[in-house]
């Protein structure tokens, strides 16, 4: 039950909660997005962004801008804010903040392994990794040939080590296995995060379980849709679904046997919260959820919600920049999710 944490939360978390709420005031609003959508060139975008909080980060860029530079600098801002919060945080908030980045670590690991498989240069891959998911010794991932080596050489020292118990095999890495590995790791990560939040108790546990349940369900549906028509067997598919969330366990049973999108739609219609969002199976609804979790005070959900909202904002900026750079301004509104 909530309520009594208000008495002691501020001892360790009061300052940081106030900071993260201040950051939230700096997210781009609908008016900003409207301005950005009407820009003609990337330099216009840079000019509009310099009036927002992204200003100091984009100021020193030389004129022929690329979309990747814009995205990189905005991500840098997110990373700076995250690091500021992390260095001020005490336990258990610091562990909570670190959990938020494990998803990015998993993505980075998979990126490097896939890239190595396709014979790309390690340095190039390292530059493409998401900065929030970096860890030492990430470069040595390029050396591994199969999962067992991957684990033994590199991952055993990282926080991702406990997630590997479900997916160590001696098979060589190839595209299919890597995707399965990614999803298995992500499943273990979500379950671990869920248990951690339950242990924290109080308002944090209640709110985070809603947010994580939505995340788990979203991934389950994504996995289903992406694996329609591939060789992934039904049992394998079911093994990739997390053990919590609104769809667990009956929804998962039904999703596992789906063979095309209409069947998936049929399954989702049995769950009222997901009916309306099914047509835009993207990040739209999760943003509404994230925004709603700013309303309560004195819990850790605000930090998670803030990180997600920022990431969505960066995705929006990337989409807008790409549309402008490729002269396809009519498609700008397709994919931009307005947060405010």
């Amino acid at each position: 039950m909530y309520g009594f944490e208000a008495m002691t939360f501020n001892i360790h978390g009061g300052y940081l909660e106030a900071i993260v709420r201040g950051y939230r005031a700096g997210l781009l609003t609908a008016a900003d997005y409207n301005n950005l959508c009407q820009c003609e060139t990337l330099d216009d975008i840079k000019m509009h962004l310099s009036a927002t909080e992204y200003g100091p980060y984009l100021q020193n860029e030389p004129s022929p801008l690329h979309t990747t530079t814009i995205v990189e600098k905005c991500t840098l801002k997110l990373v700076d804010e995250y690091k500021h919060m992390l260095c001020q945080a005490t336990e258990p908030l610091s562990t909570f903040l670190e959990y938020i980045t494990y998803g990015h670590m998993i993505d980075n690991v998979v990126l490097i392994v896939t890239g190595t498989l396709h014979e790309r240069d390690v340095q190039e891959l390292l530059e493409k990794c998401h900065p929030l998911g970096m860890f030492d010794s990430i470069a040595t991932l390029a050396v591994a040939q199969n999962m067992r080596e991957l684990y033994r050489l590199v991952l055993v020292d990282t926080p991702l080590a406990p997630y590997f118990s479900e997916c160590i095999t001696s098979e060589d890495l190839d595209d299919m296995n890597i995707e399965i590995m990614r999803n298995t790791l992500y499943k273990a990560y979500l379950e671990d995060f869920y248990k951690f939040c339950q242990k924290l108790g109080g308002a944090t546990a209640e709110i985070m379980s809603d947010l994580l349940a939505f995340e788990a369900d979203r991934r389950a549906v994504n996995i289903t849709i992406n694996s329609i028509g591939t060789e992934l067997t039904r049992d394998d598919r079911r093994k990739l679904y997390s053990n919590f969330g609104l769809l667990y366990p009956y929804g998962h049973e039904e999703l596992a046997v789906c063979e095309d999108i209409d069947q998936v739609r049929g399954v989702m219609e049995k769950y009222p919260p997901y009916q309306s969002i099914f047509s835009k199976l993207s990040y739209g609804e999760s943003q509404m959820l994230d925004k709603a979790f700013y309303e309560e005070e004195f819990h850790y959900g605000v930090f998670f919600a803030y990180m997600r909202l920022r990431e969505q904002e960066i995705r929006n900026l990337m989409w807008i920049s790409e549309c402008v750079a490729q002269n396809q301004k009519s498609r700008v509104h397709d994919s931009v999710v307005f947060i405010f």
Partner: protein
Amino acid sequence: MSGSVMLGESSSWSRALVKISPYTFSAIGIAVAIGVSVLGAAWGIYITGSSLIGAAIKAPRITSKNLISVIFCEAVAIYGVIVAIILQTKLESVPASQIYAPESLRAGYAIFASGIIVGFANLVCGLCVGIIGSSCALSDAQNSSLFVKILVIEIFGSALGLFGVIVGIIMSAQASWPAKPV
């Protein structure tokens, strides 16, 4: 020993309680009045202060206005000090023969109760004002028109401490020790 009750005689626990000196009860009442009030005030101040500092980073304009929340919490500690001073002026010596007279016991209990009333009322009042003050700082940082409205809530909250002080003073006013035998 402790559980045995004989017909017509009070059990030894109640007799033990009655034998505690009324000076003890009075002294504990005075200690609780000031100690627990200050606990409440301090609790409230740190709750509101930590949020205020964090919120003021992005919105420096809120600092001076929101110090009012801290002042309301401080007022709670001042109530505790005032009542403790009043209570200790009520404490008088009685001759040894009168120390367990009903009048003395009544005076001792009155001062004790007054101290507890004031202490705990101020404890919860300080907490209440602190939590509201924290929310006030955070909302003011986002939208400055909210400040005055939330301040009204805080004023109602701080009235709780005042109720405690009023009842405590009335209680202690009738704490009269027995007069010395002529």
